[in-house]
């Protein structure tokens, strides 16, 4: 096995008392004080996340828009400078290569695409291959993950903290927008995006400035209750907010329609990879649905890949589950046969040797408004 890669903050996490794990080939903090404590800090105050394991790709050139329209599911033509968009890369069969965020740079030409840590090699090959195959398009695709640090600050107090440090006003930014700024002397792209269900920003900065940015945010945030947050709470936060995790809610075998993410797929925008398969699937009808549930009796915590049953018959499986700190319930997301889907309808979750009763509930489990 190769040594896991380290972000510029690895030693800082150790100093802060984090428990470190190998996550998708990266040496990352899974928790500092504890998952529930960190989770609650983000819901009630603010949390700071090292996302240096995420990947970035620059897409430039006269045909950058046409190329991204062809590669991704969402409508890139809707992006004005400084806009961000949740989107996906699909296989021709409609399975998901990755879920991504496409940023149109606020100034200057081109786009900035953020991809998942676990998929960096796969995505970069996929993007480069197709850029080459489409020799009718004049586009430059450049893998730039090693140039950027990425830090997120999330939670109701995030705005007050970044306002103290930012050279330009960030409070008036709308959700899913990005802006160039300097934060505590560090030139950054500030994006009002995140993966927690809270307000907040994700900052992209020159990799050598990552530690300076982290320390400045942590220091300024301390009076506001800001805490560093590990990957454990990142997962419980995103799950409550029903944000998909690649490999769980979406994958090469769960397409975006089955995952309940039709809003990300713009079938009418023109051709893109995977479009025909999804259009055909819609024609026939999607046989599986993504649903939320909570356990209605004791029996443990539902987890990814557990079997879902109705009347003792398997009807699907859990994609993600947890003991929700905010709701105080055991919750999960499952992909099940469509005929059994419906809020209020019963399910059973096979936890170890028992079928534990569950009830379907509305998604998302948590929304801040």
């Amino acid at each position, binding site marked *: 096995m190769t040594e896991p890669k380290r972000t510029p903050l690895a030693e800082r996490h150790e100093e802060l008392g984090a428990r470190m794990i190998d996550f998708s080939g990266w040496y990352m903090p899974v928790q500092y004080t504890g998952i529930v404590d960190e989770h609650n800090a983000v819901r009630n105050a603010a949390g700071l996340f090292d996302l240096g394991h995420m990947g970035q790709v620059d897409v430039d050139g006269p045909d950058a828009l046409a190329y991204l329209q062809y590669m991704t599911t969402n409508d890139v033509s809707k992006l004005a400078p400084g806009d961000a968009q949740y989107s996906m890369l699909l296989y021709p069969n409609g399975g998901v290569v990755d879920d991504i965020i496409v940023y149109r740079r606020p100034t200057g030409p081109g786009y900035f695409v953020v991809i998942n840590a676990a998929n960096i090699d796969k995505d970069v090959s996929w993007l480069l291959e197709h850029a080459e195959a489409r020799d009718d398009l004049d586009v430059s695709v450049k893998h730039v993950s090693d140039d950027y640090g990425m830090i997120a600050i999330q939670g109701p107090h995030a705005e007050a903290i970044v306002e103290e440090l930012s050279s330009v006003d960030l409070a008036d930014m709308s959700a899913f927008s990005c802006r160039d700024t300097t934060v505590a002397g560090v030139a950054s792209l500030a994006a009002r995006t995140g993966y927690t269900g809270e307000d907040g920003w994700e900052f992209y900065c020159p990799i050598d400035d990552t530690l300076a940015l982290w320390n400045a945010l942590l220091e300024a945030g301390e009076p506001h209750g800001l805490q560093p947050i590990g990957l454990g709470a990142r997962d419980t936060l995103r799950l409550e907010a029903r944000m998909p995790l690649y490999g769980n809610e979406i994958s090469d075998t769960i397409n975006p329609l089955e995952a309940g993410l039709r809003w990300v797929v713009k079938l009418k925008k023109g051709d893109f990879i995977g479009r025909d398969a999804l259009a055909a699937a819609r024609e026939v009808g999607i046989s599986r649905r993504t649903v939320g549930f909570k356990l209605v009796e004791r029996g*443990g915590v539902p987890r990814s890949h557990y079997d879902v049953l109705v009347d003792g018959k398997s009807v699907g499986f859990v994609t993600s589950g947890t*003991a929700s700190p905010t709701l105080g319930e055991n919750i999960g997301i499952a992909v099940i046969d469509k005929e059994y889907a419906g809020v209020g309808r019963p399910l059973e979750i096979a936890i170890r040797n028992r079928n534990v009763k569950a009830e379907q509930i509305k998604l998302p489990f948590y929304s801040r408004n």
Partner: protein
Amino acid sequence: MAVPTDRKYTKTHEWVLVDGDVATIGITDYAQNELGDITYVELPGVGDDLGQSDSFGIVESVKAASDIYMPVAGEVTEANGDTEDAPELLNSSPYQDAWLIRVKLSDAAQLDALMDADTYEKYLEEEGGH
């Protein structure tokens, strides 16, 4: 948290405290800390006859589920329902309030093979690596 010297320990991080022929069993502070926020506990029924190293229940945290194993063989005489009702007790009081079960010892000689507090602490240093 100091490792109490009045009991014995397993490599799988259970403790056993013996009083006459009654053994009280729980998990160690190291175990609860490794698991993190504990949200679910499942214990055996009174009268269950369990062998040494048998799994006698489940402790589940936000992060993961973990089997718990019998340090010694015995028949369950009591299960601490408080831990099932309030699993977080295991995080706050693993050596006291959050004992898990009491058993009637079937073979007291099995205790000899378990670690005392000193040995367990050394074991943790090697195991933990920090």
